[in-house]
Structure formats: C-alpha cells, structure tokens
C-alpha cells in the first residue's frame, strides 16, 4: 500500500501550481526601481590580442550611463577557481587568471571585452555595437591533442596549454602496466565523450543592487548555490564582506550544473551597481548562453581492460585528454579527476586501476560540471569497453557483468580508486532489470523489427555514482577550497507550523515538496504545516547548495539533525508541562506521552508553551523552538543501477529510434517516488540526448558551429519512449540518517552507454561489425560507420 503522507508518499509538487500558472518569480521577473541595463560586447574571434578598445563614440550614444572595459577591473580580483588539483609529480595545477572583462587578450568566442550600462537594454546593445575594438587575431587552438603538442598558447604566462597531468593512483602505475602486459586478453577502446551545452530552460540573469544608506549590495542571480556565490564573489573578486552582501537565487529554471559556477556577469552587475549607485540588470540571450554558460564533458579517452581466461577483470588503464576551455571555471579541475577517476571501478571487482588525465586549455568556452559531472565520463568508457570485451570474448554482456560484480556480501567494499562503497546489491538490480525490461522477449521483438526492414538492438549496462557530495575533510585533502557540508534551520512557530531554512537550493528538484514530507513525518504534523525557505543568504544558514545529487543526502540530513534537536527540546518542555521526567516522554504522531500512563500533550501545546512561557522551566531551558544543524557527511553515497535500452535502426538511413528504455535503480530509501521517477526520466532524456543528438562543435577557427537550436539538437518528447523505471531495490545508505543516496544524476550517467551498446548490437545483428561509434550517434555517423 503506497503511503499517502510523509516519507515514501508521492505527494504532488506544491511548487508546480505557481510554475504552471505563470506565477514563478524568476530572476528576470525582478525589476528594481530605477534599474539600468547591461549589455556585454563579446569577442567574435576565438583568440586575439586586444590592441585598442575605443568607447568614445559609444559613450555618447543615447541612454548610455557608463561603459566598462578590462581597464576598469584591473584592481578587482579575477574569478576564482574552487579546486586545486595536484599533478602526478606533486606539483599544483597551472592556474591562469580569469578576468571579469578581458584584459590584453580574448580567449574564446563570447569572452566579454566591454560592458555597456544604459537606460534600456536596447540602448545598451546599440552602444555596444558602436564600440570600436581592434583585435589582432591569433591562431586558435581548439583540438586538445594540438593544444598539448605545441599549439598556440591560450595563456602565455603558464608556458603550455597543460593545466595538469594527473595520475591516479600514481603508485599503482607500474603494477597496472605489468598486469595489462601479462593479461590473457586486453580490450582497447578509444572514444570521445562529446561536448555538451547545458541549455537550462531559463537563461542566466543577474541583477545587482546597491543600497548606499547602509552600504549593502544585493545580487539576484540564477544560481544553484547563493552562499557559494556570496563567498567567492565577496571574498575573491569584489572584496565585499558577507555582512554587506546578500545573494538571492529565487525561482531558478534548471541548472544541470551550469548554474553552480561564479560567472563574470554576476560580479560585473554587483560592482557596476555599487559604482553607479543604481541597480544594474543583465539577461542572457539564448545565443549568449551558448557561448558563456560553462559547457560539459569533452573528453577523449583510451581505455584498456585486461581480463583473465575466465572473463574476470584484471586491470584497467585509461588515458584521457580533458578539455577545460579557455579559463578555469569554478569547479572545473575536479570534474575530470576526483569525480571521474574515482569511479573507474564501477560496479566491479577490478583489483588494479590506473587513470591518467591531462587537462588542457583551448580557445573554447570553459568546461565544468554538467549533470553527472565526471561520473558519466567514467561510466561511459567503462561500460563501453566491457561491452566490447564481451563481444570479443563471446560472453553474454549481462553474464560478463555479473561475473565481475562486487557481491552483496562484499560491502563495505574498498575500491582500488580510493572509494569505500557502503552498500549495494548489483545482482538484485540486474535481476530487476531483466524483469522490467522483458529481456526474455527481446528476440521476438527483434524479429518483428526485421520484418519491417529494421535492425533491433539491445544495450545493457550498469552504473555507479558517488553522490551526496561530500565529506569536507576528505575533499579538503583532494584540493577543494570549500567545505561540502549542508545546513538547515528548523523554526517551529508559536502555533505549531514549521519553517525550514535550508542551504540547499531547488531549481527543479521539488525540495519545497519533499523536504516538508520529511519534517512532517518526523513531527507527525501535516505536510502543509511545513514550508521551506531557500535561495536567500539573508534568511538561510550558510550552505553549499544543490549539485552532485546532494540535496536530500546532505541537506536533508542536516534538516533531520535540526528536527531531532527540536524533538529533544520539545520533549523537555512536554515533560515540564506534565510534571514528568524528560526521559519518560515518548513522541509519536504529533503527541508527547508519558510512558506507561495516559498522560499526553499535543504538539501545538508544546509549541505554544515554548513561545508563551508562562508555565515553562525558564531556569533550565531557553524559550523558543528553533534549531540549526550543519551536517558533514561521513562518506559519499553510492546509488547504482542497471539500464537496458532497445533501439531500432533504419539501415537505409542510419537513423536510430529508441523503442524502450528500462532503468532499475537503487537509490536507498526514497522520500517521494513520483519525484524520483521524474528525476530519472529527465536524466535519461538528457543521456539519450547526449548519445544520439547533442554536440557542441567548434570549427578550427574556434567558431561554435552548433551555436543555436538550428544546429544544436536537444532531445524532444518524440525522441524518447515512455520509460520503465523501478527503484524497488533499496540498500539504504548506512551513514546518513535518512538512508538516502540521491537520484538527480543517475539517469544522465547510466543511459548513454545503454544507447550506444544497443546501436552496436543492432549493427552486429545486421552483419555490420562496428566496434564503436562516437556520440552523438546521428544518422549520418551511423550510416558512415556502416559504409566505412
């Protein structure tokens, strides 16, 4: 019987009422009396030396208030990088500057050169066109291999285009080399993980405001983590202390990682508002979003999988070039390293693993976290090379995976790449997948397809991810320049309703529904009696925001801890009211009872007593009922699953249709199954998008060829089937109070290899021996592979 209340209930999303009726309050809906508008003049060339920026004529244009150039930001900090990776020789990564407005050079198409602030957006844009910029164009370096082999330098001051050469675990390198050299069989695969443009539905917006009366700045921005932006921008860019800086991220229309980072436009609007003493607003156009939002993925990898004569994995060795783009985005260095290399064990007992990543600067938009962030890159190469190995050795692709699974009784399991998986049951999720995907019926479906002249293929794979990011002491050792705890304040109001202030941020995840489910369940009150506040540094405790499938596992845990403190204090108040000992108070279903008696007081009576403390133990207990907790996770969480995709391929055109997609996930305990379904649906749609459609393509001059929806193919409703998702296999997380693991990224991590495995299978069944096709598997690429 499904629950209809609290943890485990499919409560409908309360936030949808305002979103669906046009009552959302997004950043672009915020208009401050007297605000001015900013427009950025952006580089049209990928690489060049700025010889002159003449703003004289533009400054005289109607409505222009002021034009800013790089020179205005010389005394201002650059955009900081939040993670320092150490290379395989023990040296820190190269960390070139990232100015708010370009200084001396432009390094990618879209790099901001100047910013016009004017009375209207149109006047700002008109004036920007009148700015005379002289750029001495330099050869651009786009291809990563060329970049590391002596191509033009993106940053002259660091002497090469290599940010770091990372080895993980470096001490294992020789042993891994030896194991591969001596192995019974080695399967090798070279592949590309395609570059993606994040494409949140809401483009980025920033509104800077300044109150001269109290010298306070406010930034309204499209962010996944307003406290992080306040810290980075205040401390490192503008030198404004936290108590004079408020950052608000109101309703945000999707992020997928791209709104984690601190962007130049945020700092610009905040600074310009301070200097001009009036609010300054910037709203990105979709075209701007393509060339300024940090892109995702963009790896080129060679992976080798060594197996023994029984088909057991003996060793894995990988070598990857990871594109960082022109500048270090906020968390860019961590993605191809700690969020990628540590996942190379996957769901398997591979004893020896060595991962090498060379991260490279190119004249392209910066690359950073995008839904999954490093983990899709790891999963894709691993699950593709396993599939290839199965084909080479004639082993069924499910059987080879099962043969190598970490067994249920092996948990906790320490991988050779530094993680300790707390729980999991990979055979159980695979069992479940075989049922829900009706794998037994595949051959019959393949025959039906064949009768229509189509090739049907089945792709199966597993994934694991490290979520609930992250233990602060651990990530500190790994180079993070931030803690990754989360916070919550639970404020019980005098009449018993509850306001929760969380450091997590909802931009599509449904926190306004699910967080109250947890608190209401714990307190035995109606969900409608609980509200959450998020997204405003002025009324939430310092928290690190939402990404890495961390909100419920870390933010939810903080909220549970704070609620536990509330219950503990409320028991003391109840004990006083009933003249009993606090140890004898039992709390359930919203009532405090004295154990073994029929004495009880209701939740509401205790809350009222806390705020109207006429009859209250004032000598021992403070009045009021409000508690804050900070929760720092002891470990990552490890959601895992098994996915199956069936495709039909038209051999005449190369077009691939996804006929069915089944996902069996283990997310541990689940707060709201319907919202989890939605997260998996969205993730799979994004993964299918990466596998079949999406591709950010630069030409050799550094122009983005897929710079609009005319050429960048987003997945649409008719590109995906109705999904079959199941999360009934649950091995609860052992180290957080809710036993939850997180579900936001799973679909995007697990689905691309399933699609590609299915296409390779379809081709094989049609007699085409194609070992691999790089994503996206567009009709033309598939056709070319068939006709190579």
């Amino acid at each position, binding site marked *: 019987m499904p629950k209809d209340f609290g943890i485990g209930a499919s409560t409908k999303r309360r936030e949808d009422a305002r979103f669906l009726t046009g009552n959302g309050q997004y950043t672009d809906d915020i208009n401050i009396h007297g605000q001015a508008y900013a427009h950025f003049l952006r580089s049209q060339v990928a690489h060049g030396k700025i010889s002159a920026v003449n703003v004289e004529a533009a400054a005289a244009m109607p409505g222009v208030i002021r034009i800013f150039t790089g020179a205005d930001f010389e005394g201002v900090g650059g955009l900081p990088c939040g993670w320092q990776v150490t290379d395989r020789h023990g040296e820190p990564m190269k960390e070139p500057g990232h100015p708010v407005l370009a200084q001396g050079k432009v390094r990618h198409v879209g790099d901001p050169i100047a910013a016009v602030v004017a009375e209207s957006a149109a006047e700002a*844009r008109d004036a920007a*066109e009148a700015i005379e910029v002289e750029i001495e164009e330099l050869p651009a370096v786009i291809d990563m291999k060329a970049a590391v082999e002596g191509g033009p330098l993106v940053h002259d001051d660091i002497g090469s285009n290599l940010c770091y050469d990372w080895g993980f675990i470096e001490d294992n390198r020789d042993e891994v080399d030896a194991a591969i050299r001596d192995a019974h069989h080695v399967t090798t695969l070279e592949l590309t993980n395609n570059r993606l443009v994040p494409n949140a539905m809401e483009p980025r917006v920033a509104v800077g405001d300044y109150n001269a009366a109290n010298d306070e700045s406010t930034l309204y921005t499209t962010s996944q983590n307003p406290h992080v932006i306040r810290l980075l921008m205040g401390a490192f860019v503008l030198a404004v202390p936290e108590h004079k800086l408020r950052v608000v991220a109101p309703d945000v229309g999707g992020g997928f990682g791209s709104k984690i980072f601190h962007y130049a436009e945020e700092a610009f609007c905040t600074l310009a508002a301070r200097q001009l003493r009036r609010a300054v607003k910037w709203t990105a156009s979709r*075209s701007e979003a393509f060339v300024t939002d940090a892109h995702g993925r963009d790896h080129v990898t060679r992976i080798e999988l060594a197996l023994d004569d029984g088909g057991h994995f003996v060793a894995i060795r990988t070598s990857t070039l990871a594109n960082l783009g022109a500048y270090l985005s906020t968390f860019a260095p961590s993605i191809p390293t700690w969020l990628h290399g540590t996942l190379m064990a996957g769901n398997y007992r591979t004893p020896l693993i060595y991962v090498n990543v060379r991260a490279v600067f190119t004249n392209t938009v910066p690359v950073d976290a995008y839904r999954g962030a490093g983990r899709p890159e790891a999963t894709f190469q691993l699950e593709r090379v396993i599939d290839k190995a199965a084909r080479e050795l004639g082993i069924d692709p499910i059987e080879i995976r099962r043969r190598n699974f970490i067994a249920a009784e092996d948990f906790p399991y320490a991988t050779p790449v530094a993680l300790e998986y707390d729980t999991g049951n990979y055979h159980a999720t695979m069992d479940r997948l075989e049922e829900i995907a009706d794998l037994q019926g595949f051959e019959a479906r393949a025959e039906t397809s064949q009768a229509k002249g189509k090739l049907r293929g089945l792709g199966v794979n597993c994934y694991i991810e490290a979520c609930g990011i992250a233990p602060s002491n651990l990530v500190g050792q790994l180079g993070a320049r931030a803690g990754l705890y989360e916070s919550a304040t639970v404020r019980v109001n005098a009449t018993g309703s509850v306001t929760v202030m969380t450091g997590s941020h909802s931009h599509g995840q449904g926190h306004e529904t699910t967080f109250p489910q947890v608190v209401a369940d714990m307190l035995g009150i109606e969900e409608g009696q609980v509200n959450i506040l998020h997204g405003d540094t002025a009324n939430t405790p310092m928290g690190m925001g939402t990404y890495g499938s961390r909100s419920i596992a870390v933010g939810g845990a903080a909220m549970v801890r704070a609620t536990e403190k509330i219950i503990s204090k409320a028991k003391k108040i109840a004990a006083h009211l009933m003249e009993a000992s606090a140890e004898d108070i039992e709390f359930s279903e919203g009532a405090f009872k004295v154990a073994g008696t029929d004495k009880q007081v209701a939740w509401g009576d205790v809350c009222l007593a806390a705020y109207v403390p006429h009859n209250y133990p004032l000598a021992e207990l403070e009045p009021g009922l409000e508690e804050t907790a900070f929760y720092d996770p002891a470990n990552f969480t490890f959601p895992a699953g098994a996915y199956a995709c069936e495709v039909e391929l038209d051999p*005449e*055109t*190369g*077009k691939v249709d996804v006929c069915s997609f089944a996902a069996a996930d283990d997310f541990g305990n689940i707060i709201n199954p319907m919202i989890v379904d939605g997260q998996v649906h969205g993730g799979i749609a994004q993964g299918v998008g990466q596998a*079949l*459609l999406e*591709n950010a*393509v630069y030409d050799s001059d550094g122009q983005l*060829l*897929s710079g609009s*929806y*005319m*050429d*960048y*193919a*987003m997945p649409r409703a008719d590109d995906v089937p109705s999904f079959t998702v199941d999360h009934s296999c649950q091995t609860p997380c052992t180290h957080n109070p809710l036993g939850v693991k997180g579900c936001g990224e799973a679909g995007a991590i697990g689905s691309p290899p399933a699609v590609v495995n299915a296409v390779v299978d379809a081709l094989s069944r049609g007699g085409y021996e194609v070992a691999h096709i790089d994503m996206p598997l*567009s*009709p*033309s690429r598939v*056709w*070319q592979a068939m006709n190579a």
Partner: protein
Amino acid sequence: MYDFEFERPATVADAVAALRTEGAQVLAGGQTIIPTMKNRLAQPVKLVSVGGIADMSGVSVGDGCLTVGAATCHADVAAAAAGAYPALASLAANIGDPAVRNRGTIGGSIANDDPASCYPAAVLASGADIITDRRRLAADDFFLGMFETALEEGELILEVSFPIPDAASYQKFEQPASRFALVGAFVARSGGLVRVAITGASDSGVFRWREAEAALSDDFSRSSLNGLALSPEGMISDIHGTPEYRAHLAGVLTARAVEAA
C-alpha cells in the same frame, strides 16, 4: 532589432506601392525575417505586411489545379488541401511546429528559398506556377539557387498554382536539430510524366533529379531507380551530413516517395 517602418496595406496595389521604398521588404508569416531581425542580422528600412490582404489568403481548387494564396499559412494548406492534393497537405502539416505552421506562409517560404525548406520541392516537382504582381513564373524558372529566386526588387508573390498530379508523395528526412529537411524528395506523377524534386541536399538549392524522372516516367516503381545515384558533388556539407550522405539519402527518399505515392 533595429528600428524600421511598418505598413499593413489592405490591397495588393497598396502593398506593391509600399514595396517601392528602397530597402522595403515583405513581411508574410515572419518566421525567417523576424528572428533574423531580432538577431540584428537584417535591417530592412520598412516591412510591408501582407497579412491584411484578404485576396492573398486561401486555397481554391479548379481546372485540375490547386491554388494557394501566397499569405496562406501552412496549417491552412494542410487542412484545405487534404482532399485535393494530400501529398501537399501532408508536406504542409509537417513543416516546423504548430506555431510555425500557423504563422509561416507558402509565399514567404518560396521567396526566401532556404535550401532546406520543404515547399520548394513541392512547387518544383508539381510544376507549379508562381503568380506575382507582374508576371507568371514557371517553377523551373523561379528557383535560381540557395536563397536566390527570379523575384525582382519589390516583386510580390500573389499565389502559387499547383497542377494536381495523379500521384505524389513527399518524403522528408529531418535534420535532427532544426527539423528542416536534411534531405527531402517530392515525387509527382501526372499521366506518364514524373517529376522529382530534391530539397535540402544541394549547395544550389532545390533541384530536379532528371535521371530519376526519366526512369520513373518509363516505369513508376521503386526498382526502376536501381543503379541510379546522385553525385555528391555540389551537395551540402555540414555537421549534420556529408555530401555523400545527402546524395545517398536523396536516393532512399525518392524510392520511398515512389512507394508511398
């Protein structure tokens, strides 16, 4: 968008007069010109909307022809041509999305002559006539190349007259992002004569595949295309397909159109 003048005349005569201003441009459905202007990639001095000219909208059938007013939107063609010329109706019903189909017009489409648009294939394969304020142009003389037609400065398309073929089909293979035709093939058979027009494929815009026409005029069956292939030379090369792929698709789609006609 830069400033521009705007006129919305009620008659063809007034529209033609308004178009005499240098730098004036016709605004029909605005599905190309408006986004182009919003991106500041076009700067017409004046837009002359034909949306208020009743005579330019509507679909009529007579004398074996289906005539479409130049300002008729795709959705209206899809509905009104379904009985008389289903292949044309189906083409119109699959252009863009509902918003595009309810704004975009046939006149706007063929005047713009985007090499990946659908209508030029129908107009050329049907052997339609394009009637303007000053003359009647055969389709074979109208399309001159990519974004290039025989229209003169200020010339206004009034209607397009399609001889209704005995059998026809349009097969579109969508470019994955824009869903314009990566390649589209329109096959029309009238008596023993077959015309085949290919859109989306060539650097020179829509064109007739004469060899296929000859083969199909002899024997209107898929198998008569066996051994025929278009040369990749002059085909479009972009991130969505090579010239070889486009040439190949043109063959596949033509064959499918023959089957479906």
